[in-house]
């Protein structure tokens, strides 16, 4: 049963992993983006529209990522270029996308897109326990596995990654060194948006195979919490996303086995656990990006 919980947790968690990694890039560049929920909605709907038009989940995923970039561009415009408040702008973007996707999405509700099929990895899938947990998923789950070290490498080992981190810590130094903090932040937001949109599209075309109004159900907000909970570290962010997925999976696995559970306690549990870990992490005085949430000078 533990095996099933972990395996389901990874599948469910992947839809949260991409937005969380996207939010991590945003926050490392100094911006908290509560509009993640809106980006996921945009990605989810665009994914279904493209998936229906082309008949391919892969084009859907690509369209989702693009839509995520578009949504992030609105947010970046408001926050980076116009100096809008980050949290308020994020919520505005969420409202805007909630409205737009539910109006535009009307005609697409319930239309099935062929979702990604699972692709067990030969040999590896045979490993006891780990094989089932890690290697019996659809390709994008494996993509998620790859994205984690890639993002870590990018942020810690490349010049561009250094620039992103520096923008989140000391934007003025970045400017003084002849780079543009504004441009870096804008680009980081677009990149994060692409991952967010991809996460949304994974939800709609990768996993469930259709669009329904407001289908992200708060997962975008959870992504924001996961990043802070992880103390801005890539590995922990990924772990947080999978843990959240596993907690959702636990509820249904326990029930399917006929265990008595308190439905409402189980619903609250992922948020409670996130909150508690967040408090513990924060109490340990982990250094957050120094300039996080501080708007760059208005120009």
């Amino acid at each position, binding site marked *: 049963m533990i095996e099933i919980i972990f395996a*389901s947790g990874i599948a469910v968690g992947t839809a949260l992993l991409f937005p969380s990694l996207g939010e991590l890039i945003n926050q490392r560049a100094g911006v908290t983006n509560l509009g993640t929920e809106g980006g996921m909605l945009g990605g989810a709907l665009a994914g279904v529209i493209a998936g229906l038009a082309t008949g391919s989940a892969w084009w859907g995923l690509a369209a989702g990522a693009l839509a995520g970039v578009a949504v992030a561009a609105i947010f970046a415009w408001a926050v980076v270029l116009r100096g809008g408040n980050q949290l308020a702008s994020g919520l505005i973007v969420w409202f805007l996308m909630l409205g737009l996707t539910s109006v535009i999405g*009307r005609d697409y509700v319930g239309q099935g897109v062929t979702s990604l*099929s699972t692709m067990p990895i030969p040999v590896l899938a045979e490993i006891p326990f780990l094989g089932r947990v890690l290697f019996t998923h659809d390709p994008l789950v494996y993509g998620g596995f790859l994205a984690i070290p890639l993002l870590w490498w990018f942020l810690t080992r490349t010049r561009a990654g250094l620039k992103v981190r520096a923008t989140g810590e000391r934007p003025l130094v970045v400017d003084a060194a002849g780079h543009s903090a504004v441009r870096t932040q804008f680009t980081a937001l677009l990149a994060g948006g692409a991952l967010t949109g991809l996460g949304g599209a994974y939800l709609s075309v990768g996993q469930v195979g*259709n669009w*329904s109004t407001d289908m992200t*159900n708060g997962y975008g907000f959870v992504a924001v919490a996961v990043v802070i909970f992880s103390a801005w570290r890539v590995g922990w962010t990924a772990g947080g996303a999978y843990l959240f997925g596993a907690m*959702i999976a636990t509820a*249904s696995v326990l029930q*399917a086995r006929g265990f008595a559970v308190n439905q409402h306690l189980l619903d609250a549990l992922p948020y409670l656990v996130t909150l508690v870990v967040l408090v513990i992490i924060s109490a340990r005085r982990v250094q957050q990006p120094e300039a996080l949430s501080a708007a760059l000078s208005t120009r």
Partner: protein
Amino acid sequence: MIPNPQRKTTAAVGAALTAMFVLSACGGDDGDGGDLDADIENPLSVGLVMVGSEQDAGYNQAVADAAAELDEIEGVDVVTADQIPENNSVTDTMQSMADQGVEVIFATSYGYFDYALDFAEENPEVTVLHQGGFHSGDFPENFGTYWGAAYEPVSLGGMAAGGVTESDRIGFVYAFPVAQSIANINGFHLGAQQVNPDVSTHVINTSDWCDPVRQQDAVRSLLNEDVDVFSQHQDCQSTVIQAVEEAGEHIVGYHYDAVDLAGEAWLTGSTWNWAPLMSEIVETVSVDEFTGSEFNDNWLGTFAEGNNPLELGTFGDAVDEDLQNQILEEEERLSQEGESVFSGPILCQDGSELVAEGEVATYEEVNEFDCLIEGVVGNLAQD
């Protein structure tokens, strides 16, 4: 974002048995409209308020389709409003409708009850109909509530599930332990048990009337328990159907016409066919005979009366002729006076008696069921 309970019930596939509907000359699939046999002398304007999206491929779309059919009737003008939450907003919506001359309002979600009743009391010139509630007490002259005994066709769907399952394990995905879901789960299991005494029904709740992620996860968990036939009581049904279809297993629909979506996976389902009932109500209002009529009350459609608006859907290929006949015979039986899905003895999971031997649960009693019955695996959230 926010759980929005109460986008209730629902129904799948139309057809086949529509003819039995006493009031109606509307044969065939629901939703194509235009052939209602209503005779409207005085033109009037009708408003329908929905809790979810008109395009939810479920409960609300069944209402929206009925609205479209009503609109085809000569002399009837229809306006609709959807996604109206179950709080005072619905009063605003009804007020806006009345302000623009709407004379008959259908408030189509259970949670609208009190608002609809109050609105009717304050606006005697508007006839207000509430969809979904059993209500005791007095009715204003311009108010009524109507519903159908949902568990009747659901139990027939259960028979299809019980007959087709190979693992003897069937699954039911529900949202919250409301009375109607409990009755549906129990009815579904009893139906399955009739044709397959070894069957067990595994239940999972999703804590949301439409959360595709949880729905898909619920199906995955049930598949892991060897469940091979599924049904549901959710607001949006596409996700469960698709997940079941991709797994190569079978589904009993409970919402809207999803036979196209489900393909080979389809066994049968239930669908709300509201248009005939609504058109008769509108007709009654138009000749000024609503007050004191059967609709100025608790109107309940049942198999026994031959007017249950929730109907059994078309059969999929996986249901062989024998099973189909068995199901149709059972429908015939349930249509007899005094017969019921819930004929005792029926025991709760803990062995206590739900319906005593020789007794038959009335509709009111079914609405007060607070336990799952023996043979259902899984628990209602208890405090």
